[in-house]
């Protein structure tokens, strides 16, 4: 009687082990527990499944920091700075991103699709000031609402740039 019970228990064992295996999350395979980052522009791949420690992104709902094994999430980006910390203790590398999407997949990988991204030293403070003045002028004029909405977007970009370059 007891032998029969043991035999049937042994038969169910492999199935339970298989179930446990499929219930566990699969992780993007990067050595030493880093997050796998792909930061891509239409014309260039800045990072391509590279292991990094932390990425700070300017999501439309607020700034967020993404570490390894972050919960899955899809975030539209607002114009702002993406910071990438490649190794613990290193300075963050920064790019100003115009707009795009950040997708944290459930398997320890992050994909950022951006339209334009440039390091902060590629910008000219004078051009930012001129652009901001133009946009403010449109905003205070009697232009149609569509143009004012466009001017507001440009103001968001230029003010974000000024803040980023001032740091």
């Amino acid at each position: 009687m007891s032998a029969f019970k043991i035999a049937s228990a042994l038969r169910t064992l492999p199935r339970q082990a298989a179930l446990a295996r499929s219930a566990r999350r699969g992780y993007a395979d990067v050595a030493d527990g880093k997050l796998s980052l792909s930061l891509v522009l239409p014309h260039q791949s800045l990072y391509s499944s590279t292991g990094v420690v932390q990425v700070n992104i300017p999501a439309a709902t607020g700034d967020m920091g993404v570490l390894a094994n972050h919960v899955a999430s899809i975030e539209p980006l607002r114009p702002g700075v993406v910071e990438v910390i490649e190794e613990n203790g290193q300075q963050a590398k920064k790019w100003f991103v115009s707009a795009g999407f950040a997708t944290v997949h459930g398997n320890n990988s992050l994909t950022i699709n951006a339209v334009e991204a440039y390091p902060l030293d590629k910008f000219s403070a004078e051009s930012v000031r001129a652009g901001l003045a133009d946009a403010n002028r449109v905003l205070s004029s009697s232009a149609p609402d569509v143009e004012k909405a466009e001017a507001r977007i440009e103001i968001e970009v230029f003010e974000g740039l000024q803040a980023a370059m001032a740091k």
Partner: protein
Amino acid sequence: MSAATWREFMTWNKYTQIASRAVRQALTETERVGAERRAQIGVRYQLWENGQGGESKFVIPQVEKSGKPKDT
């Protein structure tokens, strides 16, 4: 930033195009030349009939800076 007032007037695609245009305007001169070239988007179409392709046309005719229409 005031929560997405642009949504009243445009799609997310148009929003990204405007934001990207502003970012390109803020670049230094040398960077901007390359960026503007990359940013050009043109859409071409071609009508096919009986297995033969017709003339390939731009949706919006591309014009060189000198005012002459670009060919192909």
